[in-house]
């Protein structure tokens, strides 16, 4: 890349840049060559950055008014809602922001799965992304505990109890996590501390995620490498910045719709009942974005097995780049994989739905089928399909996808797929 040739114009700029090349970095980020055929599914990286910053900023303000104490937490949240200037707005942005964050991250992940963005040479980007996703789940879970409502308390009880499934040391670990003999004030305190810490760890990983991205550059809907940078790419600014801004604004309209008109629809009404260790809610359900994993957990009639499968469902994603045997990245040219991709999407959506339903009867059966298929997709379908599949002709370059390969004319449209 041509960043090395960047020379600051002013003398002061040159002096500073020789000592800390921030201006060079800025020039690199501005000029960063980006495939010109990226569709709107590629705008969610920018949207996710916005989500993270929104959560950090609103979170810092909320922490100024929140009190992490079992006797005071619920009341301090009501204080924020009633007495703090625009406290209701800040809290609703933060609570709905978590859901928006997950909505965006799921789209981002499934985009990667469709276009094969996790494949060589982008495995490290993918793995850092998964670490971010894991930390997001930890942060969201602990954040949901902080209002100290009924679902906070019982959600924390169910999830922390999972660790007691670990043989021999499970009970000790659970007690250690709680800082007490049940979920109690020490638990709330440490969750608050960690909930404040994790977003900054995520921020650090986001820097690495973007750094790792800027080494090979973006994948793209056609899934082929950049052949002619001058023809195939556009500078990040202003082309991608303006496109990301447009997509972000559309996203913000949806976000604002939730915040201003149905701020509690994604939460659970039980969380407006103060935590009571003596009264168990009728249904303990996690937030919607954790439901597929909850369904996997409950589908196994053995606690340790359930816990292993639940964590396994996430950790199997870490080896995905090596399970997928196909050399072709984009599903646009993989007719067989494309079908299995959509079956997998439906499977995950079904597991999410079942996670909110009682674990009995037909739901339990479906949960088991869904869980088995989830793992089959990675362990069997991906390696086998990659070997058996006859992929469609791949264009030579982004700029002239039709000319070179004798592919059908329709392909020219396919690589410009827009939502």
């Amino acid at each position, binding site marked *: 890349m041509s960043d090395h040739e960047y020379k600051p114009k002013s003398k002061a700029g040159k002096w500073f840049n020789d000592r800390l090349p921030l201006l060079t970095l800025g020039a690199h980020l501005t000029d960063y060559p980006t495939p*010109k*055929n990226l569709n709107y599914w590629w705008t969610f990286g920018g949207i996710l950055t916005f989500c993270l910053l929104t959560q950090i900023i609103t979170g810092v303000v909320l922490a100024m008014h929140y009190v992490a104490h079992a006797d005071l937490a619920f*009341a301090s949240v*009501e*204080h924020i*809602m*009633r007495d703090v200037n625009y406290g*209701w*707005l800040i809290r*609703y942005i933060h609570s709905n922001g978590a859901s928006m964050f997950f909505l965006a991250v799921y789209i981002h992940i499934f985009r990667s799965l469709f276009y094969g963005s996790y494949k060589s040479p982008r495995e490290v980007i993918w793995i850092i992304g998964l670490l971010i996703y894991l930390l997001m789940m930890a942060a969201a879970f602990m954040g949901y505990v902080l209002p100290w409502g009924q679902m906070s308390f019982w959600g924390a009880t*169910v999830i922390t*109890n*999972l660790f*007691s*499934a670990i043989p021999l040391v499970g009970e000790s670990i659970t007690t250690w996590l709680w800082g007490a003999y049940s979920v109690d004030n020490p638990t709330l305190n440490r969750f608050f501390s960690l909930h404040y810490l994790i977003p900054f760890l995520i921020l650090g990983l986001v820097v690495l995620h973007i750094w790792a991205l800027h080494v090979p550059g973006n994948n793209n809907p056609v899934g082929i490498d950049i052949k002619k940078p001058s023809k195939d790419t*556009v500078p990040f600014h*202003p*082309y991608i910045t*303006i*496109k990301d*801004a*447009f997509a972000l*604004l*559309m996203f*913000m*309209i949806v976000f*604002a*719709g939730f*915040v*201003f*008109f149905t*701020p*509690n629809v994604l939460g659970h*009404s*039980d969380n*407006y*009942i103060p935590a009571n260790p003596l009264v*168990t809610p*009728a*249904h*303990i359900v996690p937030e919607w974005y954790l439901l597929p994993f909850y369904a996997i957990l*409950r589908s196994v*009639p*053995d*606690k340790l097995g*359930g816990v292993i499968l639940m964590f396994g469902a996430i950790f199997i994603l870490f080896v995905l780049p090596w399970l997928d045997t196909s050399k072709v990245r984009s599903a646009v040219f993989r007719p067989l994989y494309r079908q299995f991709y959509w079956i997998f999407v439906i499977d995950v959506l079904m597991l999410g739905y079942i996670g909110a339903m*009682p*674990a*009995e009867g037909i739901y339990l059966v479906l949960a088991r089928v869904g869980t088995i298929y989830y793992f089959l997709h990675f362990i069997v379908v991906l390696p086998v399909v990659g070997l058996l599949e006859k992929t469609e002709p791949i264009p030579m370059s982004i700029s002239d996808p039709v000319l070179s390969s004798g592919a059908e004319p329709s392909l020219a449209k396919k690589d*410009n797929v*827009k939502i």
Partner: protein
Amino acid sequence: MSKFNFIKIFILALFLSSTNLVKAVEQNDPIKVNWSFKGLTGKFDRASLQRGFQVYKEVCSSCHSMQYLSYRNLGELGGPEFSEEEVKAIAASVEIEDGPDSQGEMFFRPGRPSDKFKSPYPNINASIAANGGAYPPDMSVLVKARPGGSNYIYSVLVGYEDPPSGMVLDDGVYYNKYMIGNKIKMSAPLTEGIVEYTDGTQPSVDQMAKDVTTFLSWAAEPELEERHRTGVKVIIYLILLTILVYLSMKKIWSRVDSEV
């Protein structure tokens, strides 16, 4: 059985018991009321809020606390909007324990607008003891704490009926068509004419139920009107900005031979 341990049994038992409960008794969906405060531009009915406060004060507040509200809230925009004088008079009608004074003694004084609503019982245990073992929940966020919200609260208030034949109820337990599980330990709180509305509205059970539910909905979401107002402005602003950015984007991308 031994391989099932605490948490698994716990989760399964929860789902089984709760769904069995739902199956065992008739569960009615709450009545849908066309509340003035629903919808994108919904606002509270001011007169209904004031009447609702009267019902709360004269009926509900003898058992139910509302600890997160202050008397001053009654005069704030978007609420019942009582005048400053009225708010002072409402606050002054209760005795608040304050102190310690310079002698170290606690003392009673008339309430001020800045005081929180006075609770009927000194603590939760006292309220449970005084109500036959049932805790009368705090009403500050009650509407948000129930699935079905305002519709549910209203339905329970008008849902008292004689139990179906064959159902035996313990002493102090009442049948309610809409209550989750159909059994409630609160006797029907509203009877025709239990309050005398100062604005001359006929105090039917239905009217009082609507008024007090409106009041409770405001108590749970005092920001509702401002939220709706701000929301409409924010969305309009975002749509306009989106259009501008879209046009800019089209112009910028017209420089390259790629669609956007």
